[in-house]
């Protein structure tokens, strides 16, 4: 019997395969799951293209391992020994070491729109969004403080 069918695999197995290819220097792409990177990456609609690099920069969206999970979030702070990430639509941060970072998003595609993360337009949009986000997080902290 010849069998050819669609495959459903676990996140862990999926990312292990992807990371193997990234380690070889290949470019890989997959569809985003979840809304923590809204408004840039949309659940089930955005295809991200990743590549390994030696030096991750603040502002990069990276694929990394955190508490046995694979996450795609933005690098918001970089220290000597550790890196801090947060989803653009998330309030929580993740702190990881360099060896836990596997790749960064060099391009993404939503519908027919292809965005290079190196483009000045994209960088401008990110800067604006993050500034607004910082205000939101500050006000949220303030409101929570007032409730206590």
């Amino acid at each position, binding site marked *: *019997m010849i069998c*050819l*069918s*669609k495959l459903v*695999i676990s996140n862990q197995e*999926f990312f292990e395969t992807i990371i193997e290819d990234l380690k070889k220097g290949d470019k890989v792409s997959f569809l985003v799951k979840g809304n923590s990177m809204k408004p840039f990456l949309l659940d089930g609609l955005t295809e991200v*293209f990743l590549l390994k690099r030696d030096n991750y920069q603040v502002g990069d969206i990276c694929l990394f391992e955190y508490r046995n999970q694979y996450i795609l979030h933005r690098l918001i702070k970089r220290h000597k020994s550790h890196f801090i990430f947060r989803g653009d639509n998330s309030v929580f941060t993740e702190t990881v070491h360099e060896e836990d970072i596997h790749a960064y998003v060099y391009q993404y595609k939503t519908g027919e729109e292809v965005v290079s993360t190196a483009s000045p337009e994209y960088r401008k949009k990110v800067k604006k969004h993050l500034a607004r986000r910082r205000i939101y997080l500050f006000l949220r902290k303030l409101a929570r403080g007032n409730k206590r």
Partner: protein
Amino acid sequence: MKIKANYVIKTIKDEFVVVPIKDEAIRFRGIITLNNTAKFIFETLKNFNLDKKELLDLMLEKYDVDQGLLEKDIENFVKVLEENDLLE
């Protein structure tokens, strides 16, 4: 018929899967899984341009199966390849 050059077989755990390479990237979306027989056909059609009859003869040499059943299987397999735009 021949499988397009930009499709490759990857192994995820114990499964063989077909993924396209497009715009220089291995694109893990709409993954298709193959069993051993399908993998044999896929690899054969990736390397050689064969018609259904040639494929049938090749498989009858390799597998001890009923010819009628195999013909039907190949027919269905080729249909799936066409539907997924895997053929040149």
